[in-house]
């Protein structure tokens, strides 16, 4: 699994497509899935079966006053850590520019 992270609107999905992946291979906005209250490890294990998983970094900015929003940000951050641990390759896309944080890009 290739895990792609980065800020909002940074061009993460476009980057995955540029590697030759179809939309069916890509789980985008995976951080939203923490809202289903599933066990995070089980969620990460399941997502790790997909070719490409994308999470937007959401932990910057002010810590929200709302308890549920706070919980979401924390769970999203933890999910990203679990996904990065399971990934062969981790790429952070920033302003459309990819940076490999772990492993190597597959030759496709």
């Amino acid at each position, binding site marked *: 699994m290739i895990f792609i992270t980065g*800020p*909002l*609107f*940074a*061009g993460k999905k476009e980057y995955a497509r540029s590697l030759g992946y179809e939309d069916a291979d890509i789980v985008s906005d995976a951080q939203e899935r923490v809202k289903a209250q599933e066990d995070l490890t089980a969620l990460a294990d399941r997502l790790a079966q997909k070719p490409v998983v994308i999470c*937007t*970094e*959401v*932990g*910057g*900015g*002010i810590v*929200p006053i709302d308890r549920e*929003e706070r919980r979401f*940000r924390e769970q999203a951050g933890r999910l990203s850590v679990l996904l990065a641990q399971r990934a062969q390759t981790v790429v952070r896309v*920033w*302003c*459309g*520019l990819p*940076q490999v944080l772990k492993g190597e890009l597959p030759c496709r």
Partner: protein
Amino acid sequence: MFTLIIGGSASGKSVYAESLFSPGQHNFYIATMEPFDAECRERITKHQAQRAGRGFETIERYRDLAGLDLPQRGDVLLEDMGNLTANELYSPQGAGDRAVQAILAGVDSLLGQCQNLVVVSNEVFLGGKDYEGDTLRYLEVLAEINRGLAARADCAVEMAAGLPIFHKGGPEL
């Protein structure tokens, strides 16, 4: 040579940007912040003091970058893209829905008129997307501009704690 510098509040982007300029050249500073209120004026005064002595000639340009003719060829620091984008999106005289095209055309025009261009933009994309009103549209527009600038740049730098992280190009360029 085109350098793009992006960072959060007080990440050291201006100081790093100014360090790329040597006094004695024709240095132009394109200021984008309209002095709406006392806080704007205070911020403007702080930046003016910070760059004093570096030989910058200040050009105030709040909109329509593409219509700007530099007095002569030189090096240009444009600060900052977050302001210019807001001006184009929300000012009655701004480009509105054509803000992305207007700004990127403006940058292309500047690139044709100067030796070295440094553009400072803002990292505001790490706090989720639960925003009220038009904020998400602003983020989407600024992100598209940032990606367009990064694609054009010889050097793209993210600032963290006053230190540059090079995503494209390097300090040797």
